[in-house]
C-alpha cells in the first residue's frame, strides 16, 4: 500500500480503522494512492495491471522495485522480501533481477544508443568489451544493431522504445517492469511493438509486469490481467475470464466497448468437426452428412490430418458412378485457420467462402469447424453483455 503525504502513519491508522480514502484525504490531507492490492505473478507470464489514470497502477509497479517506497505491505521476489532489503541489496535486486521500461523511454540523451543499452552493465562494473558485446546482442534482438552510434533523439519513438527494451534486457533480469511502455507511441507502431514484445517474450521468456490503460492492449498481451480502480484491484483473471465473467458492475462497464472479435479466437467459437476418413467411400460420407445435416464434410487421414473437403452433391455423383476413392473428389478451396486466430481475422475468410472453416493445428490436424452461423451466434452471445 502507498500513502502520499508528510505523515503517512496517521493516514495508515485511520485506514486500518476503516475510514474511506475520501475521509482520510479530508482529515489528513494525505492521499491513499494504493491499498488492498494483493496479487501473485507466475514465472514467465505476462501480467498486466490495467486501470484508468489515477488508479494507482504505476504506483503499484514502482513499489515492486521500490522506486516508490511502499508505506505498508510487502513485495516478494522468489521468496525474498524486497521491502526488507537494505540499500545495497536493493541495488543488487535492481541490477540483476528487475529491468524496467518507461512510458517516455527515459533514454539518456547524452549517451549513444549502445551506451544506453550498456548502462545497466556499466554501473555494475562490467568491462567495456563485455558490456558492449552484450549490448550489441540486445540491439540485434530488437533489430537496431545498425543504430548503435546514434543518439536517442535521432530515433523515432518506436525505435527509442526498442532501445529502452534492449536496455532493460541487457542485464538479463528475471522480471521486466513495463510502465505504459507503448502508450506514447502512435497506434500503428503500438500494435507492431505489442506483436514484437510477444515474439520477443517467446524467445527470452521473462516474467513481465505490464502497466497499461489500454484495455485492448491488456487483452492482447496479458496472460492474466489485474484491473485496478481507485488504488485497489477489482478483478484478476485471464482475458477470457474478465470478458465473460466480470466481477462487478465496474468491470462490466469497463469492458463494454471491447471489440470481442479481437479477443475471442477460433478456438473459442469452433465446434467439434464431423469428419470421414480417407479410406471411407463416398457412400459412408453421404450417410454421415445426411445424419448430421451437413452439406459438406471434412476428410482426414488416419492420423487425423486434414486431407480436404467433399460436398454432398459430388459425393452423390461419385456414389452413383460407383467410385470408391474419395481422393478424386477432394476439394481444397476452403478456409483454414489456427486455433489462436482472432475472430476479426476469421470473418473475412468466412464471408468469402461458401464452405465452413477448418480449425487446424500446426501439424494440420483437424481440431474443429466454424460455420458462419456459429460465428454470428458467438458474436451475439458475447456481445449480449452490453
Amino acid at each position, binding site marked *: 500500500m502507498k500513502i502520499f503525504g508528510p505523515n503517512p502513519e496517521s493516514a495508515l491508522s485511520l485506514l486500518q480503522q476503516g475510514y474511506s480514502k475520501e475521509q482520510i484525504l479530508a482529515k489528513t490531507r494525505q492521499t491513499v494512492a494504493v491499498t488492498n492490492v494483493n496479487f501473485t505473478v507466475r514465472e514467465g507470464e505476462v501480467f498486466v495491471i490495467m486501470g484508468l489514470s489515477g488508479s494507482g497502477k504505476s504506483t503499484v509497479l514502482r513499489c515492486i522495485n521500490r522506486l516508490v517506497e511502499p508505506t505498508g505491505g510487502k513485495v516478494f521476489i522468489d521468496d525474498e522480501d524486497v521491502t526488507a532489503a537494505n540499500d545495497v541489496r536493493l541495488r543488487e535486486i*535492481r541490477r*540483476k533481477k528487475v529491468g524496467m521500461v518507461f512510458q517516455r523511454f527515459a533514454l539518456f540523451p547524452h549517451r549513444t544508443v549502445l551506451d544506453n543499452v550498456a*548502462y545497466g552493465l556499466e554501473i555494475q562494473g562490467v568491462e567495456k568489451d563485455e558490456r558492449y558485446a552484450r549490448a550489441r546482442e540486445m540491439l540485434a534482438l530488437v533489430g537496431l544493431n545498425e543504430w548503435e552510434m546514434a*543518439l536517442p533523439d535521432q530515433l523515432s519513438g518506436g525505435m527509442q522504445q526498442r532501445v529502452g527494451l534492449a536496455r532493460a534486457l541487457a*542485464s538479463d533480469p528475471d522480471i521486466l517492469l513495463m510502465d505504459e511502455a507503448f502508450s506514447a507511441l502512435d497506434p500503428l507502431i503500438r500494435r507492431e511493438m505489442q506483436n514484437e514484445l510477444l515474439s520477443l517474450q517467446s524467445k527470452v521468456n521473462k516474467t513481465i509486469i505490464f502497466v497499461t490503460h489500454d484495455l485492448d492492449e491488456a487483452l492482447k498481451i496479458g496472460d492474466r490481467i489485474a484491473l485496478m480502480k481507485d488504488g485497489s484491484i477489482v478483478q484478476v483473471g485471464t482475458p477470457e475470464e474478465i470478458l465473460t465473467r466480470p466481477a462487478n458492475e465496474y468491470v462490466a462497464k469497463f469492458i463494454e466497448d471491447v471489440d470481442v472479435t479481437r479477443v475471442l479466437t477460433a478456438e473459442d467459437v469452433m465446434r467439434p468437426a464431423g469428419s470421414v476418413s480417407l479410406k471411407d467411400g463416398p457412400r459412408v460420407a453421404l450417410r454421415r452428412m445426411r445424419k448430421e445435416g451437413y452439406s459438406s464434410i471434412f476428410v482426414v487421414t488416419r492420423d487425423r490430418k486434414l486431407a480436404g473437403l467433399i460436398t454432398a452433391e459430388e459425393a452423390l455423383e461419385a456414389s452413383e458412378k460407383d467410385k470408391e476413392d474419395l481422393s478424386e473428389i477432394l476439394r481444397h478451396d476452403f478456409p483454414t485457420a489456427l486455433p489462436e486466430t482472432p475472430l476479426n481475422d476469421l470473418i473475412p475468410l468466412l464471408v468469402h467462402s461458401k464452405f465452413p472453416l477448418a480449425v487446424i493445428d500446426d501439424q494440420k490436424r483437424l481440431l474443429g469447424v466454424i460455420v458462419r452461423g456459429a460465428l454470428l451466434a458467438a458474436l451475439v452471445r458475447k456481445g449480449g453483455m452490453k
Partner: protein
Amino acid sequence: MIFSIPLGHWVELFINFLKEHCGGFFNFINDNLDNLMGLLTSLFLVINPYILIILLVALIWFFSKRNVALWSGIGLLLIYNLNLWEAAMETLVLVICATLLALILGLPVGILTAWSNLVHRVTMPILDFMQTMPPFVYLVPAVILLGIGRVPALLATVIFAMPPVIRLTGLGIRQVPVDFLEAAEAFGSTRAQKLLKVQLPLALPTIMAGINQCIMLSLSMVVIAAMIGAGGLGGEVLRGLQRLDIPRGFEGGLAIVILAIILDRVTQALGQKDKRKGN
C-alpha cells in the same frame, strides 16, 4: 537613538579573533597561493608574446569558431602593442586562479544544494549576501587577514564571483528531468553513479553558463582588486584614475574589455559544444 547595535564592532572582533588564532593558516594560504600565481605569471611571460598569441589563437580556434579566433588574435596583438602585455598576463592569471578556486569550492556546494533542500535554503541567502554586498567591503577584512597583495585580491574576487557557479550547478542538477533519475535508479545506480553519469553530464550546459558568469564577474573585480595590490590591468586603470591620466586609464580599460570578450566567447562556445553533444 539611545541604543545602537554594535554590529560592525562584532564583525571586527570576529576578524581580529581569526587573525589572532588562525594567523598561521592564513599565512600558509597566502604564501602558497602567492607562489602559485607568481609561477603561473612568469610562465606566461617567459614565452615570447607572439608565440603565446599564436598558441592562444590556435586553442580558441579549436574550441570555438574561426572568426572568434581571428578577432581574439587581433585583440591580443593590440594589447601587446599598447605595452600592456605583462599587466594583461597578471590579470589573466588572477582571473584563471579565481575561476578555478570558485569551481573547486562552488561545484561541491552546488551539488549539495541540489541534493538537500536544507542546504539549498541555507545557502541561497548567503549567496545573495555575497553578491549584493558592495565588493569594496570585502577588501578590508582581506587586507587585515592577508595583507596587501594578489592573494587577498584573489580571495575577494572568489567571494564575489563564486555565487553563479553554486547557483547554476544546483539549478542544472535540479533541472534534470525526473524520468532520467528514475531510470538511473531503476537500473541500480549508486548516488555517485547517478551524479557522474546522468546528472552532471545533463547539467553541463547550465554549469558552463555558471562558469562563464564567474569569469565575467572576476574580470569586473580586477579594478577593485587592484586597490589592494592585485596589479595587472586593474592597476593600470587605477593609476590612470588617480593621476587623471586619460590615455593610461582608457588603454587599460580597453585591454580588460578585450580579455573579457575573448573569455566570454570561448566559454560560451564550450558550453554550446557540450550542449550539442548533450542533445
